[in-house]
Each structure stands twice: as C-alpha cells, then as structure tokens.
C-alpha cells in the first residue's frame, strides 16, 4: 500500500517560495476536482489517497507544462539530480526501454559530437577502430595473397612463394603440410574473470586443466593488452608444436588448442562459430557467473563443429580434388604437346622426302632447295638459275604434295646467281677431267673472266655433250669451242737419199708443214716411223733409220715442237716386208708420221 502524505509529496523543494494565497488556490482546486468526481455519481466519502492522486494526476502534466513555460530553470534544477537515478531505475524495471528510446538518437548524438569535438571522438574510438581495421586489413591482405597463390595454381609454386615470404625453408612448410593439424581442446572463456564458460576436450588426449588454462590465458591476454599493445588483441599463442589461436568477442573469447599448423580456413571457421555463439547467446555469456549449469547447451554443439573440421576430413576431401586438378592441368599441357609433336614428326617426314626427291634430280642436286610443311601446304624455297629448273622443282614438288594431300607453294626464285669464280673454275676442271676419260676425247679448257675456251679433239657424239655441258656451267658467260671431231691426217713423208740420213731442203719444207699441223693440234702427238728400201744389211738400215729419225725429230724440235710430243718408233723397220716392187727405190727410204692422242698422264 502506498503511504501517501500530501504535505510531503506536494511540497516541492522550493515550496518556501509559494505564497499563502497560492496554497489556497491549490486547495480550492483540489476541492473542486473532488466535487466533480462526486457529481459523476460517486458516493460522498472522504477522499482516499488514491482518489486524491487520481484527481491531481489530471492536472499534473498541465501544471508541469505551465511551470516549464513560466520558470524553466526551476524545473530543470528540480529534476536534474534525479535524472541519472531515474534512468538507472528504469533500466532495472525494463532493460529495453531506455535503449529503445535513446537508440534512434545515438547516431545524431555521435554526429553532433563529432562536429563539435572531433578529436575527443577520435581518441575515444581509436582503440576499438584501430585494432578492428588492422585486424581486417591483415585478413584482406591474407585473402589477396591466397588468391594470387591460387591463380598460379600449382601447389609447389604456392609453397615456394610462401617459403620466400615467410623466410622459412620450403622443407619446413612441407613438413607442416604433411603433419596437418589436430584440435586438442576448445575453451570458451569469460574475458574478464578467465572462467571457462564451455569446454570441449578431444577424447584420447591427456585432459587439460581447463580452469587453470583459462585463468592463465586470460592473465596473459590482460598482461599483453595492458603492457605491450594497449587496445590491440592477442591473436595467438605459439608453444612448440602447439598453437592456441585466440578469437575475441565482447564478453568472451575462444581459445583453441591445436597441434600443428592450422590453416587459414580453420581460423575463419573459429571466427564464424564464435560469431554465431555471441549472436545467439550473448546474454547467457554476459551473465555467466561461474555456474556451468546455466550455460546453454547449444554453445557446446556449436563448438563441437570445430572438432569435426579436423585435418583428416579436409585432407580427404581436398586431396583427390587436388589430384584431379593436377591431372587436368598436366593434360592441358601434355595433350597439345603430344599432338604438336606428332604433327612435327609428320611434317619432318614429308620434308625429308621432298629433300631426297629434289636431290635425286641431277640438275637440281647442286642447288639448295628448302622444302617446308605448314598446316596444309608444302612450301619450297630456294634459288635456281633457270626457269627450266624451277619447272622441274614444281613437277617434283607437286607429286609429293599430292601424295600427302597438301597444296604446293613453289617459292623457288629464278635468279642469275653471282657465282663464285673459283667454283666455276672447279666445275670446268671437273667436267674437263670427266670428258677426257671418254675414249678419243682430248680437250683442254681455259677460263678467263667469264670466257671459256674449249680446245681439243673429240668424237662427234662427245663433242655435242661437251658443248652442252660447258654451256650450262653457271658463271660461264661465253664458250668458244675449238673441237675437232678427228685426228689430223699427216700425209707428209720425209724421203732420203740412198745411204744418207741428211735432210734435203725439200724435206725441211715437209717438216715445216708437219710442225704447223702439230701447232694446230696441240694435243696431238706424233709417232715417227722409219721405212727402208731393204738394200744393204739390216744393221746399216737400222743405223740409217735411227739417224734419219733423229734428224727429223731434231728439225721438228728446232721448229718449236715439244720433244715430248714426238715419239720415235724408228727401231722398227717398217714396210720392208710388204714393199711394192714397182715403186721407185727412193720412195722406200722415208720417215712417216702417225698422229695419236696420248692418254691423260694423270691416269
């Protein structure tokens, strides 16, 4: 029951300022209000405190309003000391009312404060925002890194890069990857007291003293926050092969004891689960007082999801995928490579075939012709000195191209190649030698400044070949042929007086003629044949024949004929056996000439 005393409640703190007449007025007003109630059919009774309060309540808002208008400062002074108290009182009555009332205005209030006192706001928010931003920046950078790494795709490259960036050896990373990670325990810890709100310890491991651990971790966190980096958070504690990632929320933090190196995805998962827990159970966490029975069971369920995500499962799911990706990647490289290789082999084969075919044609064998096979055509490049040769290339090329369903692209050029004079000279020498091997061919060649002179004797058939062959040698501009189809006939006979070897003046004229013939046929050699009349002894005739031969020979040499071209066969007495008895005796004593071409000395 309310204990109502009008004198207490109605008298404001500044009541002494009210005049007596004013009190009278209030009194009358109350009376009239009560009177009104009575007229409304209520039994006449002395007013109860409730009735009185009810009666006054009607006029209170108006009264306060009028007082605010007439004397605002007094009202402000009257309420001010109790505002904080009333808000606190209201929060106790209804927790949500004040936040709901003030909430919508908070934004405007903060904005106004920023406008008027920007620095103060920055200082106030810095510890929170600074660490938040730095935390997110680290995450963003890590995320970017992971994306860059994954675009390079190969695990090896990733590891190399990581090893480079972290400054650790690749072997260490491989080791970490191979051992994976193992969750040993999870603790949800009250941020302030360090009391463990919920814990999960993996079966089969030695049990950890969660309370002590929670306490010490909290102490370490507090220490780090206070002494090392105020405003920032301790993210992780490393202890040998153990790692304790700490994920902090408003009233609690999650500590996960992990053996090995937990991957980034696991850390993200921790963060996500803590986020869910905080969102759904923030009140239970905030009001946690060490009584584990009051902790919602769903928190445990959520935490258990972290144990499920252990390495075995992840590895199982990821490694075949990785393997397939690798196979796919290698396939992408290997299949086109193999196809390309096969294509190359085929084209090489065709090219080789073309080279052989072109080489087999004797007129083309000296020229460098380069067949090339592209996608659907056979391209032959090179230079030949004549259109006929180009046509020959076309002919051979087309045959090969048709065989392989290719199109022929004859890019052979007809050009007057500047020929190396030494090559031309060599070719001339080669052909000269070649022709001199043929029977009855004796030629000599002289080559000077594009002008070739071919001299000698040859049969008619050989002469035609020689003319053709020498005309075709590149670098030879003009050929002069001085070829005789037969050996010259030398009819001259040098006759002598009986028993004499002396040359008569007539003889000398004959000899002169012979020497001229010899000069005309430089390749022709002469065999000197002695004939005798058979008068006298053989010995005498032999001596005479020798003497006559030597004299003719000397006379020819004296006329400029090389002695090596003169071969005497004077030891033989010719004509003795089949002499014509009717002839004059003198005509039997002579030297005759048989022209011949000696075999090439080089053979």
């Amino acid at each position: 029951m309310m204990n109502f005393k009008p004198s207490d409640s109605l008298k404001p703190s500044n009541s002494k300022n009210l005049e007596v007449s004013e009190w009278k007025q209030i009194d009358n007003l109350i009376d009239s209000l009560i009177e009104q109630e009575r007229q409304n059919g209520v039994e006449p009774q002395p007013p109860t405190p409730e009735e009185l309060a009810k009666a006054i309540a009607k006029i209170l808002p108006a009264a306060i309003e009028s007082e605010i208008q007439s004397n605002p400062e007094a009202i402000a002074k009257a309420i001010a000391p109790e505002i904080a108290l009333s808000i606190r009182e209201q929060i106790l009555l209804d927790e949500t009312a004040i936040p709901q009332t003030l909430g919508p205005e908070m934004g405007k209030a903060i904005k106004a404060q920023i406008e008027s006192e920007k620095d103060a706001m920055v200082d106030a928010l810095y510890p929170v925002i600074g660490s938040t931003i730095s935390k997110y920046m680290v995450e963003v950078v890590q995320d970017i890194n992971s994306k860059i790494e994954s675009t390079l795709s190969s695990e090896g490259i990733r590891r190399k890069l990581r090893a480079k960036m972290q400054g650790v050896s690749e072997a260490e990373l491989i080791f970490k990857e191979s051992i994976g990670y193992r969750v040993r325990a999870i603790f949800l810890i009250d941020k302030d007291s360090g009391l463990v709100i919920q814990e999960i310890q993996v079966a089969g491991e030695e049990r950890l003293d969660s309370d002590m651990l929670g306490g010490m971790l909290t102490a370490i966190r507090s220490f780090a926050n206070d002494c090392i980096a105020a405003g920032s958070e301790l993210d992780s504690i490393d202890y040998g092969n153990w790692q304790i990632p700490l994920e902090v929320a408003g009233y609690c933090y999650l500590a996960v004891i992990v053996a090995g190196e937990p991957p980034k995805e696991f850390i993200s998962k921790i963060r996500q689960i803590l986020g869910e827990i905080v969102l759904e159970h923030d009140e239970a966490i905030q009001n946690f007082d060490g009584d584990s029975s009051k902790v919602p069971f769903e928190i445990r369920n959520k935490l258990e999801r972290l144990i499920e995500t252990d390495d075995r499962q992840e590895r199982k799911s990821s490694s075949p995928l990785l393997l397939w990706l690798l196979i796919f990647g290698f396939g992408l490289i290997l299949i086109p490579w193999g196809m390309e290789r096969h294509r190359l082999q085929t084209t090489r084969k065709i090219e080789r075939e073309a080279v052989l075919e072109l080489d087999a044609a004797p007129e083309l064998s000296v020229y460098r012709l380069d067949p090339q096979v592209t996608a659907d055509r056979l391209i032959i490049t090179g230079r030949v000195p004549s259109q006929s040769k180009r046509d020959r290339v076309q002919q051979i090329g087309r045959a090969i191209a048709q065989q392989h369903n290719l199109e022929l692209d004859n890019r052979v050029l007809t050009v007057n190649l500047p020929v190396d004079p030494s090559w031309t000279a060599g070719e001339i020498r080669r052909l000269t030698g070649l022709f001199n091997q043929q029977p009855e061919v004796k030629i000599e060649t002289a080559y000077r400044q594009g002008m070739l002179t071919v001299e000698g004797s040859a049969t008619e058939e050989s002469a035609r070949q020689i003319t053709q062959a020498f005309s075709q040698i590149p670098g030879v501009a003009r050929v002069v042929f001085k070829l005789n189809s037969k050996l010259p006939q030398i009819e001259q006979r040098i006759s002598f007086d009986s028993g004499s070897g002396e040359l008569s003046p007539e003889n000398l004229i004959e000899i002169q003629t012979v020497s001229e013939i010899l000069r005309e046929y430089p390749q022709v050699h002469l065999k000197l044949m002695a004939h005798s009349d058979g008068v006298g002894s053989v010995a005498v005739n032999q001596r005479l024949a020798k003497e006559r031969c030597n004299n003719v020979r000397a006379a020819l040499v004296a006329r400029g004929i090389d002695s090596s071209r003169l071969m005497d066969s004077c030891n033989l007495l010719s004509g003795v056996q089949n002499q014509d008895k009717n002839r004059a005796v003198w005509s039997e004593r002579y030297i005759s000439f048989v022209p011949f071409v000696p075999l090439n000395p080089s053979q």
Partner: protein
Amino acid sequence: MSSITKKICLLGDFNVGKTSLVRRFVEDKFSDRYLSTVGVKVSRKSTDVRTELDIQSIDLLVWDLEGNTKFKSITPSYLKGASASIIVADLSRTDTIKNLNQHLQLFFQINPKSKAAIALNKADLIPEEKLAKLVENYQSQSSKRVLGVYTTSAKTGDRVNEIFQRLAEELVATNKS
C-alpha cells in the same frame, strides 16, 4: 551436482604474504623464502560448502597478484570478473594496513557486486593482546561488503582455511539467490 567456479583475487602490498596464504590454502605448505610474484599466478582449489539442502562443491580459482609497490600499481584488468577478493596486509607493517582501504576501493570499483575479506597476515609475529586490539580497531571502519577481518598466519596455517571457507560459503549463497 553441478559445480560452480569462482574467481578470487588476492591483493595487497608487496611482501605481505599473499602467495604464502595461497600456498597454505592450496597445498598446505609454507616456505620462509621470499619469492616475488611476477604478474600473476593462478591456482585452483575445490572446496565443499554445506548448504541447507546439500553439499555444494565450488572451485575457487585463486589469482595471486603481484603486490604493488610505490613504483608499480596493480594491473586493474587482472581484477576483472572476480567474485571476491582477499585483501592482505602485514600486521608487522602498519603502512600495509593503511593501504587496505585503497585496495578495497580499487577492487570494488572494478567489481561492484563482489565481496571481500581482509586478512591481517603474519599474526604469528604479533603478541596475542596486541592482535585483538588491532583487529578491533580495523573492524569498526570496515563496510558491509567486507565479510570479515581475519588475523591469519600462513606460517602456522592459523585461520587460513577459515577465511577461504567463509568466502566460498558467501559465493555459494550469492549464486543460489
């Protein structure tokens, strides 16, 4: 029977015997060697509290804090979330008794709903008659949030368990309500 856990802090000037009290309570041991606590040491002891209905087990997580000196004050964040504290003074050093209020204020400021007990330690060094007077002197000025003033001796173990037990009972009682 569910167990509850509560955080208790030990505060006081340096070398008043906080660590010794904890050691006596947790391990029932004492050493004369003075080892300065660096930062904080967390210990735990389970005790049973008899209530009207049953026996309630309570885990006391005892945070033995580094004693403050004039150069270094206590790290306030260590005190956060504590349900109760034992403020310790050395009976042989009056300045440590004078500082009790300062520690109490700091603790209550951080934990408005908490309780505290005062341990006037090293009682074994003080004659009996003088002891009673000192306690009486101090008792009069303590507030209602202080559960009691105890003259303790970590060396002899005198009243050490009693002060922790008193706190445990109080914590179980507040947890029930």
